[in-house]
């Protein structure tokens, strides 16, 4: 259960992070007007002033900060003058696609990575060593490069998948066809990371006294691994999964760039380059809520899996 002290800590963290979300974009040089119209457009002084007023940039920072909190409390994420839409609509549009791309990859990567990693850490064999070598190569290689190679071989050379986008015709099968390769690439990256962590974790746990005791009791290997060692080795993975969940929206940036997908990653990246404060604030807010919720969930899971945490 979540104690009152812990709940207060989460509430304070949430308040501080959301406040920081206001100041971080403003600490970068420039503002949303800097990059609004294009490099070869010139504005008269009165047009500049008019635009600054419309965007609320002429108000003192303290006033802007109060307005920001006022809007957040009314669930109003503001308006993007760069993308000409309400930020909440923009985020909803992009988020659903990014979640469709990333969530299955995260889940599959977690399941496959932990299971394969646990087995590889538990017992060595020629097949498992080859498997580890392959996964380590994926783990070490830049995601952008691997994705581009996969796209070149499977989409360009073999013509098995489309080169870009979330869809062409928009039917369910068409979407699945477009998502398969990018999602598989994300699964592979997530799997490789989880595999390496889990393998190391199981290697550490299998030398523990409780594992030796279980073996002395006459339990089979599979029973020792999945009934006793797996649960303890899983703890570092839970922390990582909580972090993954928090960054699920922005973490697909490379995949989105390679496959020309208009998701949350590219939304945040473009907003960063154009200093689109409302989009940055709105996206950071969603990420903040997801990170805090994921940490909360990880806390609860930890206390469920590890009684020592509960007793503390």
């Amino acid at each position, binding site marked *: 259960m979540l104690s009152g002290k812990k709940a207060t800590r989460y509430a304070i963290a949430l308040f501080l992070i959301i406040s920081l979300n206001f100041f971080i974009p403003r600490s970068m040089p420039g503002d949303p007007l800097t990059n609004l*119209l294009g490099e070869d457009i*010139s*504005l008269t002084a009165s047009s500049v002033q008019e635009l600054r007023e419309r965007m609320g940039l002429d108000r003192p920072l303290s006033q802007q900060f109060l307005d920001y909190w006022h809007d957040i409390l009314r669930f109003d994420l503001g308006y993007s*003058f*760069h*993308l000409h839409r309400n930020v909440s609509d923009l985020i909803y549009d992009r988020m659903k696609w990014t979640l469709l791309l990333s969530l299955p990859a995260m889940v599959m990567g977690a399941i496959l990575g932990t299971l394969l990693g646990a087995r590889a850490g538990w017992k060595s064999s020629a097949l498992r060593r080859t498997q580890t070598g392959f996964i380590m190569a994926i783990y070490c290689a830049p995601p952008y490069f691997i994705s581009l190679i996969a796209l070149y071989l499977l989409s360009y050379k073999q013509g098995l998948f489309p080169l870009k986008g979330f869809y062409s015709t*928009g039917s*369910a099968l068409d979407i*699945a066809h477009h998502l398969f390769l990018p999602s598989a690439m994300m699964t592979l990256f997530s799997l490789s990371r989880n595999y390496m962590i889990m393998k190391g974790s199981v290697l550490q746990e299998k030398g523990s006294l409780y594992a030796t005791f279980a073996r002395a009791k006459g339990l089979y290997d599979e029973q020792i691994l999945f009934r006793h060692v797996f649960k303890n080795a899983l703890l570092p993975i839970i922390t990582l999964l909580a972090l993954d969940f928090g960054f699920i929206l922005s973490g697909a940036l490379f995949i989105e760039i390679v496959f020309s997908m208009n998701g949350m990653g590219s939304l945040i990246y473009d907003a960063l380059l154009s200093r689109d404060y409302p989009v940055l604030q709105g996206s950071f807010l969603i990420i903040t809520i997801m990170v805090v919720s994921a940490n909360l969930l990880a806390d609860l899971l930890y206390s469920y899996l590890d009684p020592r945490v509960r007793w503390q």
Partner: protein
Amino acid sequence: MKQNTYKIAPVLLLCLMLIPFSTASEESSGMVLKIGTPNVVKSASILGDSNMGVFAHLSNPTLMKMAADGSLEGLTARSYEVSEDGKTWKFIIRDDLYWSDGEKLTPEDVQFTFDYLAENYPAAGWMKETVNDISTQDDAVIFKLNKPYSRLNLEFATYPILAKRIWESIEEPMEYTNEGEMLGFGPFYINSTDLGTGVIYFKRNPHWKGASPNFDSVEIHAFANMDVLSLALEKGDVDAYYKYAGTYPYPSVKKLEDTGNFEFVEKDNIGLIFLGMNLKKEPMSDLSFRKALSYAINYSEMLKLDALGFGQVPNAGFVPPSMMNFKQTAQLEQNLSLAKSILDSAGYKDADGNGILEGKDGKDINLIFLTRTDYQRVTELMVDYLKDLGIESEIKNVDSSTWIKQKDAGEYDLTITRSTPWGMLMHANWGTGYFDSRRTGEGVLHVLEDPEFHKLCDDILAATSQSQLQDYAYQVQDYYGENLPGIALYWNKVVTPYNKAFSGWYSDPLYGIFNVDNFLSVEKSR
């Protein structure tokens, strides 16, 4: 059977899960021309998204257009005339233009467009200060100005003509977005814009009375990744490449050539890459120092390394030969010993013998070189050239917004930047918009405060005849050659690849292949 059901079940489940995401998207039909571009449209706003604005010229042509030789001709206007004092401009509107819903385009639409843009579109704010009155007379639209303005016809080669009945109820044109059908009177109109797939679908305007296009539809496919766009070209997913104010990457040209399936439109760029200097700071404010810099640069090497030879060594007059009223000035060349002797005569000496020249304040010259990732290679070459001259410089690599901010605040000594085709034409033409200190803008340096230069710009704007304009154009290029407010690094070519299965490509200096004439002349080869 049961096993097969188990195999199919996950696929069916996945499809069921995807049904909420299913969306009605357009499918290609009839003869389609597909253009691939790295210019990603981020919102379906023809006045609020610069890329969308360029593409919308096909559905909402401009009043004027730039011909291949850089001269100006009517597009929506059949012809135009200007009074002797340069203050009254009369544009005769073509009478064979129809909106895609069958209504005729009227001079009132044109009048409305410019009244409306002047009032509501910040980038057209200059009109409020220049145009006194816009009226119609039969099939003509008449602009009465409060002062002569020689560039009016050029300015009108950039603004799309809007349908009065649609736009008069829209208060904020930049914020108006429409992902569905948009009324157009060009040979094609925008049928839909799918931001999810990054495609703009144009359909043939059924009421177009001009030369008949050879395609039923045109599609613009945006790619966030240039490598993938190249693959799409090779694979035949798109038929041609387009980038506003840009070329197909030179290193990838050979690969396309080797396939044997592509040809290229090669056009001299009227934009260029140049060395910008903060003329408000020492030693850049010293003409001798700028001259020495111009002799320190190895232009041939720069052209070879950065543009793979697609271009030529520039002249001191800055303006490329592809611009109207180009004047031949001295060609820039590397001459290190001359550069050193100029610096020596001007008092820049290495008195303490540490290998670095001292400025007039007696301190070692150490310059801040502000740059962006796009110009990293050129900047590194420049730093080497400066080092050979005995000048230290420190590269400050920043993103575009930071560059704009620091450039405007004067927090730099040198910078590498580019001029776009429109950038070269803006203000008083011939690149003046980049230097005149009375200007502001994202890409401009506004560092030249010389009254002589300001007067020259004002004279150009107030010119009332072509011969006057030509005379001033020559003066501007002489001024650049003598004063070097910016040093052109190379004049390059814009290379646009297209699939050999298509022919008849036509490019103009301002928008490249994205012009109405091109989409009427391109055809699929038999």
